[in-house]
Structures are given as C-alpha cells and as structure tokens.
C-alpha cells in the first residue's frame, strides 16, 4: 500500500514530461492517478503513427484472458531515440507499467515502462546508450 502511494504520487509529477510528446491531450485520455502493472504475452505490435501500439494477453488467477491495448510514443520519436520495429515481437513476454484509460476500456499508456522477460527495458531512454535508461 505504501509502495503504491509512492508510485501514484511520483507518476503524477512525472506526467508533464510525458505530456510534451503527445499529439493529443494526455490528460483527456489517460488518468495519471491510475497506474496499472500488467504481465502478458504480445499478440500484436503496430509500428505506426501517431502512436506505436502493442497488444498483450493477460491471464488472471482464474485463467481468464484479457487483451490490452497499450500506447507508446510515435514512430518518429522512438526512431530518433534509437528504437526500431524489431524491438518487440509477437510472442514476447512483457511486464508493463501504464496509465489507465479514463473511459474504462482495456487500454493504457505504457511509454517508457516496458520490460522484456530477460529484464531489458525497451522504449525507454536512448537505445544507443546500450540497454536503455530509466525515463
């Protein structure tokens, strides 16, 4: 609970940094106070504008599977940071920390918070620095 409190306050302050990259109003689509961590398998990866998106199947304790739609920054922003269309593949296992959509749909904004099963963080910082950096 305490950890969650820290996380919520921290993400609230980090938001303005993120907002600067959006082609739409971040606050009108996502709730910076609702952060979710999802673990799942990539079912689709769209290297498209205005936002790169990927979809993951997340299984709950009872075995029910839900498909989530996760938003990243644009192709252009990610390319200039050294990332490419091969950074993520269907079938990859990922852990994602993301801001939930305000409309209650299975949709969240995950920019900078995607971790592969081997621990490598992707779409964060500058890929050319090596393993990516915290952002």
């Amino acid at each position, binding site marked *: 609970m305490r950890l969650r409190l820290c996380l919520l306050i921290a993400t609230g302050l980090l938001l303005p*940094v993120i907002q600067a990259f959006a082609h739409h109003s971040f606050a009108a689509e996502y709730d910076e106070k609702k952060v979710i961590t999802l673990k799942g398998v990539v079912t689709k990866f769209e290297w498209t504008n*205005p936002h790169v998106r990927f979809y993951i199947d997340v299984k709950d304790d009872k075995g029910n599977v839900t498909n989530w739609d996760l938003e990243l920054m644009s192709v252009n922003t990610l390319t200039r940071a050294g990332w490419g269309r091969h950074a993520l593949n269907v079938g990859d296992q990922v852990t994602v920390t993301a801001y939930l959509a305000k409309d209650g749909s299975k949709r969240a904004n995950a920019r900078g918070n995607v971790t592969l099963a081997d621990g490598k963080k992707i779409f964060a910082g500058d890929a050319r620095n090596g393993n990516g950096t915290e952002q």
Partner: protein
Amino acid sequence: MRKAFLQAMKAAVVFLALASSGLVAMAQSRGQAQPKPASPAPPAPRLPNGHPDLSGVWNGGGGIAARSLKPGDHIVLTPQAQKIMDARQSKDDPEANCLPTGVPRMNPYPWRMVQTPTHKPETHILILFEGNIHSYRQIFMDGRPHPEDPDPTWYGHSIGHWEGDTLVVDTVGYNDKFWFDFDGHPHTTQLHTVERFTRTDLNTLSWDITIIDPGAYQKPFTVQTKARFEPSWELMEYICQENNTNVSHIQGPARAPR
C-alpha cells in the same frame, strides 16, 4: 497508522527527489552534445545573398498560448470567444483529429525551413512540417501584398520581409478551425499574426508571434518561443491518420484542470 503514513510520504518525497535529480541529470547529459554555456554557440550563418541562413531542421517553437506569453502580456477573451472556449471538448481538438495546427501552435515534431533562392533576395520561404499531417507554409518574399479577400485557410496568406537580421512574417486569411493549444484557445477569421524569426546563434531560433484578433481577444498578445537547430536530423514520414485510435477514447472539456 499516522506514523506509517508519514513514513510512506517521506519515502515518496525521497523517491521524487531522486527522480527529479535523475531528470535533471538526464537533461544535462543530453545538453552535453550542445556547446557548454562557457563557450557560446557560433553565430548564425549567412546566405550568399547576405541574409541570415535560417535553413535546416528545427525542433520546438510555436506556442502553447497561455503558457509562453511575453512578460506583461495577458490573454483577454471577448465574451463570445470565452463562450466558445468554455464549450470546447478535448475530443474535438483538431490536432488530436490529425488536422493542421495553424499558428501559433506547434506539434511535437520537427520542421524544415527552406529559403529560395539563396544567391539573390529570396522569393519564397517554405516551412515543411513533419507533423501533424506533413503540411507546409509558404511565405512570399517578393513584395506582393495580401489578396483583398483571401479564402480562409489553415495557414493563411503569409508575406515576409527582413528587418535587419529578423524575418518578419505577416499573415491574414486564416480559417477559424484550429485551436491555439490543448486548452482550446479560439480565434476568428479576423486573426492576423505577426511573427518575428531571429536566429540568435547557430543553434537557436527565437520566434515571437503576436496575435491580433479583435473578434476573439480584447487586445493583442505575444507568444514567445524558441526552436533548437538539429543539424543531424532529417524529416521523417508521419502519417497521423494511419492509426489514430485516440479520438474515440478522449473525453472531457478541453480546459479541464491538468
């Protein structure tokens, strides 16, 4: 319990302090690619025609109207414009719908300035935008006046001239469809903008935009901003309409507190 809460708050503050210092460090490390403040950037280059060379890829600039005002300036809407602004919903923001930004808004993508020709006084200056829809502005430098009754357009009719080393661009003939920012600052077809572009050194383009629109604002105001030179960048394709699934999920008034 109270103690536990305080401890949690303390942990949050420490975390934030670390996160903030990390951001500052990141910003500083990025800045290392630029000349250090101790050794000022080289001066703006010049074209063979003697004018400052503004050509190349720039990033940033434009304005979020209410957040980058010239010191001392204020935005005072007319009652009618206030009504329009108060009613605006984020889902209707033209930029979110992949429509052009108009002036003074700038999307978070670079743009290229092109001056032509370069061996004698320019006849045209073009601004090529990577976002929001690969649109462009053309600024006529050949001395022609504005048309008497231009069709209203997203970027209007622009004529430019040099005042010393500053490019002054005068634009009329705008439509009233674009917003100045996420907050939904409106305007009318009476909008008249005067932009002053000055390359203050190799890396910096100062860009002041004066907004004159008696239909929406009770007095003119000026947005002041800067763009950074990105000599190693090229414009990339950016087709906003390709997969814009955002609009159906955007909600709330444009002017919601954020």
